[in-house]
């Protein structure tokens, strides 16, 4: 709710929060690929590629996703 409001006020297309072994993506459009080593997310203008080990989806809603695991690499394609 707060995030939605913040997004509306700041007019953000997306945002990606990265913590230790956690990645929070807001406003993703689609989940393209999901394995324990790689997760691919489609955002508005690019694809987000997350590579790592033991990657799991901890929470998943229509517009946001929380990924946990050992993250080695985050790529914007």
């Amino acid at each position: 709710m707060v995030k939605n409001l913040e997004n509306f006020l700041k007019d953000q297309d997306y945002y990606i929060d990265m913590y230790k072994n956690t990645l929070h993506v807001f406003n993703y459009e689609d989940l393209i690929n999901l394995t324990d080593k790689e997760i691919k997310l489609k955002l508005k203008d690019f694809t987000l590629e997350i590579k790592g080990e033991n990657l799991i989806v901890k929470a998943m809603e229509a517009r946001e996703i929380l990924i946990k695991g050992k993250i080695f690499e985050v790529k914007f394609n």
Partner: protein
Amino acid sequence: MKRFLKVKIKTLKKTELLMKLNKIGANIRDISYDRDGVIIEVLSSDLKKIKKYLLSYKLEILDETGVYKVLKNIRINSLTVVAIIFGLILFLILNNLTIKVNIVHQDSELREIIEEDLKKYGVVPLSFKKSYQEYEEIIAKIKEAHKDKIEWLEIDVEGMDVYVRVEERIINDYQETTGFCHIVANKSGIVTRVLTQKGVALVTINDFVNKGDILISGEVKLNEEVKNDVCAAGEVIAEVWYKVKTSYPLEYVDIKETGKTRFNLMVKSPNAEYVILKSRVDKKLVQNKLLFHVGKWEVYLQKESEIVSVNKRYGEEEALNKALEKIREKLMIDPEKFREIIKEKVLQKSVNNDNLDIDVFMVVLEDIGVKKNYTKETESDTSDSKNNGDNNTSD
């Protein structure tokens, strides 16, 4: 409020399942991975979607979450919860209940007086305890009502008992001895008994005395000479004759209870009274019993007893007895003076306008003495008057 359910979806292809869940747009709050499936917290509305689109998966609802979990637990343990609530209510009631009211004083009369007053203010067994402030107010009211009897009063609450400790006021009933007085007759009559405490009795038994006669003199004389002056004290009982005329109505209204009772609740505020249920009894006697109070609001259990009133008429003999009773009550108005009625005789009786008119002759024993002050003549006054008298004579 959103209702999330904890659901286990059995599958070995967990990532595939998550992809599918993503495709159908299910909101999943918490995902944990089990050996043979995925445990998710999903909205109840989304669960319907999952059931609709993911038909091949085996779903198992494990639990509720949040408030719904608490409600579910309460539902499951309803008996325990009810028992706890009932226990708490019982505890609160017992904690605030007065089982016994002990009035600590050896004088039973004083105990009864205080008990009556405590009843009036709702301090009775099986009633709710009052606040310290309310007890203080009750103490003040009782002390005010019995200024002459109570020196000190204290209400202590010890557990479920209320202890009322009283100190009796002892008034030393010393009579004023200042000034000099005679005991004089306030009514005419025949003396039957003389009791002299101070002074000299001037009447004896069987003497007829008129109103104003000195019965016990304050002047103590020896050989016709006043040796001392006191304020006479004592009592002189005499037979006093009365001729009394009275009238008593022959018709009266007899009120009887029909035995039909109804209970109601009445809320009393400082300014008004509100009866909760509509009364179905036309004529009634109402008794109120205080149940509890919240601040200045009091809740009473009201017992309404239905009554019927019937117009009745006394027989002549019955009316005569009632009229005599009325006269006797009037004669006994001053209990300190009144002793007994020794004779009564109806002289005349007649019925006029539904009233019984009677003339009665009564002989009553009563104390007819009242104090009357007098001033002592000083010797100088006496000598002055003598001198004046001599002068006047010579003039």
